[in-house]
């Protein structure tokens, strides 16, 4: 018996050794031969690299670096020519004729205008069931085709020859070039997509690349690796030879890897903000995302604009961002975040010239009294704040509750919910005040402003203003972009005066970036990161 036991034990040991041997090689070490290597983390692996179907931030980032659309976003988030060499825009700003440059796919085939036509129509094909197909809706006939009301042939994208792509839009919009940098607008090779079918882009060798890098390795849920693409048209600009990305979910682990030099760039956890405060490697990434309180105007108390404004002014946003959320977010006094651009590289905020809401408890108290008199309400009712159940959001919500109680004497019940549950309640109009956020789909104030038109599916508080609706409607088709932006500024002012929402903060994210990492850009729209220009210097 004793022998048997020993043998069993020995076998188990051998088995464990054998498993150990399967472990593979440590890839976290950078090369020593002067190679340019960047080490990163992601919280998950890219769930899908099929550019027509993908929906998540990790995949968007990967695609932005291994693929290239007609344009790509540069350091200042301005569109610069990618696959397109030049563009000719018609007078009515509805027809774009792109001239493609001589670029190659990673397998040496030329990139053709047909690759774009194929890709865009594939994304719009109802059979593809692309969740981001709506990004293509500015194109003529796109929405109709996608919702089975039109034909593929009527979609306004056409390869005139191998190097010329003609795109017709439904309406003139100022942000179309920037939009072509978005993943759904990437070109696709019909032969490769059809060859792999369902398995397209599930492994590095089941796709082809036309961007600055190629995916060279992909150990699912462990790590993946980029290598410089030798067939990229602008390869002389690309300095990095290799990028290693490890999948790390745990915040402490990210920090440990960063402080032991295993990774060069990673997100900074909120528990570590104090530790790294003021250090040169903290990098703030401003998103085009706004968080705000949405009021349900079907509630008698909240139907009054003065009362809503009082609530808005009662909240000390600076304390909220600096002491509570501590993620670099900026206090918001308006709807459209500073990252959103207007014409000629100016931000929409600069054009608007001001933030509308300031923290002023005295004025708030006065407004509340006036508002209650107006509405004929004698007693302040108890209010309910619908919010998220994540730990970060809960802290924010607690703070708002405390502020309203202290500054206005309003008693607030918190109602934290899971994302889906909250959505369900909001859609049903079953809320009084809701803590919510919105991220830009494209680089234009319209992505925020058209939410609040009467009957809009996100206007869940049913706020309604005829003047506002008129301004938005006009701007949707106005080819005079200067006038359009002025109208949009006016619209935002209206929204703020009536306090349809109470803006809280423009969200930011903090990262740690080793000081020897240069020119790694982050973008508030579409993909988060660009590695095309990044390089290592002075390591």
């Amino acid at each position, binding site marked *: *018996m004793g022998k048997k036991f020993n043998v069993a034990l020995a076998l188990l040991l051998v088995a464990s050794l054998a498993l*150990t041997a399967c*472990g593979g090689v*440590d890839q976290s070490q950078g090369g020593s031969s002067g190679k340019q290597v960047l080490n990163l983390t992601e919280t998950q692996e890219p769930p899908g690299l099929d550019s027509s179907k993908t929906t998540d931030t990790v995949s968007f980032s990967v695609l932005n670096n291994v693929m290239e659309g007609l344009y790509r976003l540069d350091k200042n988030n301005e569109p610069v020519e990618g696959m397109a060499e030049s563009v000719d825009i018609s007078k009515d700003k509805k027809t774009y004729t792109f001239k493609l440059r001589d670029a190659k796919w990673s397998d040496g085939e030329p990139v053709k205008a047909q690759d774009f036509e194929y890709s865009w129509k594939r994304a719009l094909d*109802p059979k593809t069931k692309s*969740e981001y197909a709506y990004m293509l809706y500015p194109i003529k006939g796109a929405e109709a085709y996608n919702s089975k009301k039109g034909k593929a042939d009527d979609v306004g994208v056409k390869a005139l020859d191998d190097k010329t792509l003609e795109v017709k839009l439904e309406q003139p919009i100022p942000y179309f070039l920037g939009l072509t940098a978005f993943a759904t607008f990437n070109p696709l090779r019909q032969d490769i997509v059809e060859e792999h079918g369902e398995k397209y*882009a599930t492994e590095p060798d089941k796709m082809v690349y036309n961007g600055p890098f190629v995916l060279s390795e992909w150990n699912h849920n462990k790590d993946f690796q980029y290598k410089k693409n030798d067939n990229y048209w602008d390869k002389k600009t690309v300095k990095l030879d290799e990028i290693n990305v490890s999948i790390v979910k745990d915040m402490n682990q990210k920090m440990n*890897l960063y402080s*032991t030099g295993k990774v060069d760039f990673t997100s900074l956890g909120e528990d570590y903000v104090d530790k790294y405060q003021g250090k040169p490697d903290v990098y703030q990434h401003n998103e085009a995302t706004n968080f705000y309180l949405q009021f349900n105007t079907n509630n008698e108390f909240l139907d009054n604009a003065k009362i809503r404004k009082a609530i808005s002014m009662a909240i000390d946003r600076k304390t909220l961002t600096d002491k509570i959320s501590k993620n670099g977010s900026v206090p918001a006094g308006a709807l459209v975040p500073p990252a959103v651009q207007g014409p000629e590289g100016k931000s929409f905020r600069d054009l608007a010239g001001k933030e509308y809401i300031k923290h002023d408890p005295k004025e708030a108290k006065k407004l509340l009294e006036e508002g209650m008199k107006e509405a004929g309400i004698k007693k302040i009712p108890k209010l309910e704040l619908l919010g998220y159940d994540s730990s970060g959001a809960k802290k924010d919500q607690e703070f708002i509750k405390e502020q309203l109680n202290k500054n206005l004497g309003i008693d607030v019940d918190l109602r934290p919910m899971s994302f889906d*549950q909250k959505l369900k309640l909001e859609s049903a109009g079953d809320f009084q005040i809701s803590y919510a956020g919105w991220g830009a789909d494209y680089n234009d104030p319209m992505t925020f402003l058209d939410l609040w038109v009467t009957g809009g599916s996100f206007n869940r508080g049913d706020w309604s203003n005829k003047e506002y609706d008129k301004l938005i409607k006009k701007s949707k088709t106005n080819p005079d972009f200067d006038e359009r932006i002025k109208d949009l500024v006016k619209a935002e002012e209206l929204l703020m005066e009536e306090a349809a929402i109470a803006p809280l903060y423009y969200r930011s994210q903090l990262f740690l970036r080793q000081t020897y990492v240069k020119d790694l850009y982050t973008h508030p729209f579409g993909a988060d990161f660009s590695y095309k220009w990044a390089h290592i210097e002075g390591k």
Partner: protein
Amino acid sequence: MGRYILQRMAYMLITLWVIITFTFFLMHLMPGSPLQNVEKIPEELQEAILKEYGLDKPLPVQYVQFLGNLAQGSLGYSYKYDGRSVTDLLMQGFPASAQLGIQSIIFGSLVGVLLGSIAALRRGTWVDNTANVISVLGYSVPSFVIATLLSYYVGVKWGILPTGLWGSFQHTILPTLSLSFLVIATIARYIRTEMLEVLGQDYMKTAKAKGLSRTASIGRHALRNALIPAVTVMGPLVIGLITGSLVVEQIFAVPGMGWMFVESIQVKDYTVIMGVTIFYSALLIISIFLIDILYGVIDPRIRISGAKE
């Protein structure tokens, strides 16, 4: 014995079926759907996607379909990870998780037995006290706390081992240690108690009287008999290890299966939720079964009484 095993197998299948059924219906009670960008997708498209997943059908129909596919050995495709089958996902994570589990249980048992025996033999000395402290700590401090501390102190402060990630054997040391603390503590406690009892038994005196050396009598008689109760706690220990590994894997960024548990529930990746649940349940049920069998091997009395039933 053969009949006993068959009977147990039947019970195992029933248990598994009950778990599957409960999980399936509970999972569909969660609000929301597997669609990620639900706020922005046009409604017709949402319906089309749900139809593709078969989620438009009534729940009982979905349930029967699911069981049918399962009977054919298919767990389906992940909703979140395009073109990847649930079996693929599980198999990709399995080697790392299995390696971690096996290393922890072997290392933990060996150290546990050693520590427990020494503590019993040197009862009342500082060795015994130290072993006691280790046992209490290992038993009461959860593995994720140990993991976080090890990663920070051994990895960052002292720089001896990698703080995390996966690759070489070195990467496995800290996660293995974190997980094996519980095993060490539990086994050591049981071995010590049993050893003390066994050492006072008459047959130990006989062994000594017939001239066996101390080492031989301890090795051949005392330890063998002390091992029996230690094996009984293997079941709960394995469960502890598996649940512990879910968190410890995340802390050390081990590419195992643990992440799938939490993530699939968060994003309502129904097929993955079911796949992970079935896999882990089967693993637990089979472990318990094997331990029961092992118990019979070590202590023949159990086997006989089992067969009589």
